[in-house]
């Protein structure tokens, strides 16, 4: 059996240069659609035979996005817009943009008038997501998006194709759940940066291909002898926790990620899309069942309760909140969720993340001090 380290290498390579993957897809004559966070169903894109391409920003210094966004808008949107303005995303057939946070509401017009050639698909969904009316609005909205995608793809969108796309993505979700469990059992083999790369690569690869790679890796991990690793066990939360520099510091400070409640990671695959007669309804219900993300309407702060449960189940020494700089929803959630963790006796460290200035030396000091405190 292949060694885990050999199986991990392609994931890391993919995440170092996602643009190459986009070029490859386009060179094969396929159409691709950029998918911004949060909760734009990739299934809709697969259902019309196109490839979704995740747009969660990039670690780069922006030169042009400042013509559209002021400095106090999050780096995911600044850097994604910057990529568009620089032509790094040329070839995309469209970008899907939800409006579930205030900064995203202006992404559409900023993209439209800045980038121009690549059309924007507004991906609205209902915040009253657990009510029948919210579910119905979201279902209808997803149907409308599917129709728009079908136009761009130049083919019909069938329910059977959508159901098939949901099945493919659910298989990927199951594979990722199995992988994160195996990674938690083998921190000696999977560093925090490796774990992130495996999860993130799914945004750039065909999900079927990604599932096969993830399964092979998981099998290899499960074949390893029982881990004797004695480091510190973390659960991460936030929007993104994918900066290799930050994750390397985590590893060097003796931490491993046992589980996460990160919008780009487990939040997306902790639950499957329900299988329903109308597949678009299943996608709407998935949104209703999702938890643990600050852009979702969450009147009881279930996010905090879930985080406590995850930390306890993972026997975590502490929680790391990777705080996306200038992210309103996260900054609001921090206060009550922090209190919930404190009440549960779970230590928390918050580290600010900004893709535009990916230097984490301050975070290194904080993490080392956190590690020292946890080791008592």
């Amino acid at each position, binding site marked *: 059996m292949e060694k885990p380290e050999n199986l991990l290498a392609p994931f890391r390579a993919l995440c170092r240069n996602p643009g190459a993957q986009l070029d490859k897809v386009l060179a094969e004559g396929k159409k691709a659609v950029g998918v911004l966070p949060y909760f734009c169903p990739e299934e809709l894109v697969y259902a019309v035979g196109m490839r979704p391409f995740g747009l969660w920003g990039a670690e780069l210094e922006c030169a042009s996005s400042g013509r559209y966004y002021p400095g106090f808008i999050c780096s995911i949107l600044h850097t994604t817009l910057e990529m568009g303005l620089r032509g790094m995303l040329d070839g995309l057939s469209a970008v899907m943009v939800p409006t579930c946070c205030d900064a995203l509401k202006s992404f559409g*017009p900023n993209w439209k008038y800045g980038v121009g050639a690549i059309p924007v698909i507004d991906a609205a969904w209902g915040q009253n997501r657990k009510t029948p009316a919210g579910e119905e609005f979201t279902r209808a909205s997803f149907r409308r998006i599917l129709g728009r995608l079908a136009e761009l793809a130049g083919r019909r969108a069938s329910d059977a194709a959508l159901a098939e796309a949901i099945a493919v993505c659910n298989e990927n979700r199951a594979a990722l759940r199995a992988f994160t469990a195996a990674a938690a059992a083998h921190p000696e083999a999977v560093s925090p940066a490796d774990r992130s790369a495996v999860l993130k690569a799914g945004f750039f690869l065909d999900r079927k291909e990604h599932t096969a790679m993830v399964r092979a890796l998981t099998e290899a991990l499960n074949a390893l002898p029982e881990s004797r690793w004695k480091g510190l066990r973390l659960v991460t939360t936030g929007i993104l926790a994918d900066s290799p520099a930050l994750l390397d510091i985590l590893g060097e400070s003796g931490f491993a990620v046992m589980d996460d409640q990160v919008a780009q990671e487990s939040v997306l695959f902790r639950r499957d899309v329900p299988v329903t007669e109308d597949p678009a309804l299943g996608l709407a219900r998935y949104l209703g069942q999702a938890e643990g993300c600050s852009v979702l309407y969450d009147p009881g702060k279930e996010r905090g309760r879930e985080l406590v449960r995850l930390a306890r189940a993972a026997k975590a020494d502490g929680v790391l909140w990777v705080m996306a700089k200038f992210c309103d929803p996260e*900054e609001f959630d921090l206060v009550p969720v922090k209190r919930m963790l404190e009440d549960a006796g779970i230590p928390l460290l918050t580290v600010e993340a900004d893709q535009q200035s990916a230097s984490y030396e301050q975070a290194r000091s904080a993490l080392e001090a956190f590690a020292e405190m946890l080791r008592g």
Partner: protein
Amino acid sequence: MNEEKRDAKSVLRALQDRIAQDAWDAKNRGEKVGWCASNFPQEITTAMGIPVVYPENMGAAVGAKGGGRRMCEHAEGLGYSADLCSYARINFSYADWKECPELEIPFPDFLLCCNNICNCMIKWYENLALELDVPLILIDIPHLDGEACDEDRVKYIRAQFDDCIAQLEAITGKRMDYDRLTEVMAVSQRSSRAWLRAVGAMEHVPSPFSGFDIFNNMAVACVGRGTVEAAEAFELLAEEYEALAKEGKSSFKGEEKYRILFEGIACWANLRATYKGLQSRGINLTATVYGPAFSFLYQNLDELMAAYAQVPNCACFEHELELRVHDALKNKVDGAVFHMNRSCKNWSGKLYELERQFRVKTGVPTVIFDGDQSDPRCFSEAQYETRIQALTEIMEANKKEAR
């Protein structure tokens, strides 16, 4: 008995005070009182006779009275980032301290949230619900992706409207009287039309009033537009403005040399500096989105739902731009001042593009300044002065050239 005729300004001020006192009286009688988002469909609570107060208005008033910095800093001490909306920070401080020397509002038994102005409202009210242990009702109005509010959105908003009524009946024990709702809708139309008529008087040259007066008067447009008293007060205001315009007079202090569009929420904590910087140069504010912001025109319930989706910051970019351009051209502005409001990511995220396209479509010069609605730390008087000076010079040069 003949009552002495009062001016609209004092009528509006008295009405605002009375609405605030009514909420306190209701609270003291043991009635359930709510905290409400400013663009929540007020028709529901007005028709049900449920008193509500508006934390956003409190945030503005506290800012204007000099308490913004103290309240914001306290919220930051509670863990809230200084990047967050200053109205929210002021409100969190009040929820924690339970007192505020600048202005107090009765504490809520329930919360009414609507995100048509921003999604920040949702997170703010979620936290309040937890902090104060009271129920939260959300009417979610998704941002529009086109000119019109489509049928799916109307159905969704309507279902939430009905659900909200049912929840409020359970919370307060008061029943919705649908005949009363029809009356309130009619009165709200009357208020909205009168408000638009009053604000519309700015098209006269000179404008019959100082545009900054809108910032004072709009509180009633927000909290009381479903009441006959508000409709009458706005009609009186419109009459006064129209009478002044007929005589070519204005309450603006000094000669109105230049007319501008002011974009964004007022800097409540720096109202004097922002006003003086304009007034001292003979610049009057004659266009602002606050006219349409608090007027909701509709003929029936479905149109009411759509009207609440067409508010500024919920409508699509092109609609928002057209609103400004139309107002600016109609009201004959010579320039425009755009407030890059640190509190409001929704408004600020599109401001650069809005400013660029506005400038091209109207042909008038524009400037942007940095500020905040209620946190004075984000405003620099020196920067503001420099920008206004630059704008004045361009407007002056344009006038000379036109002559």
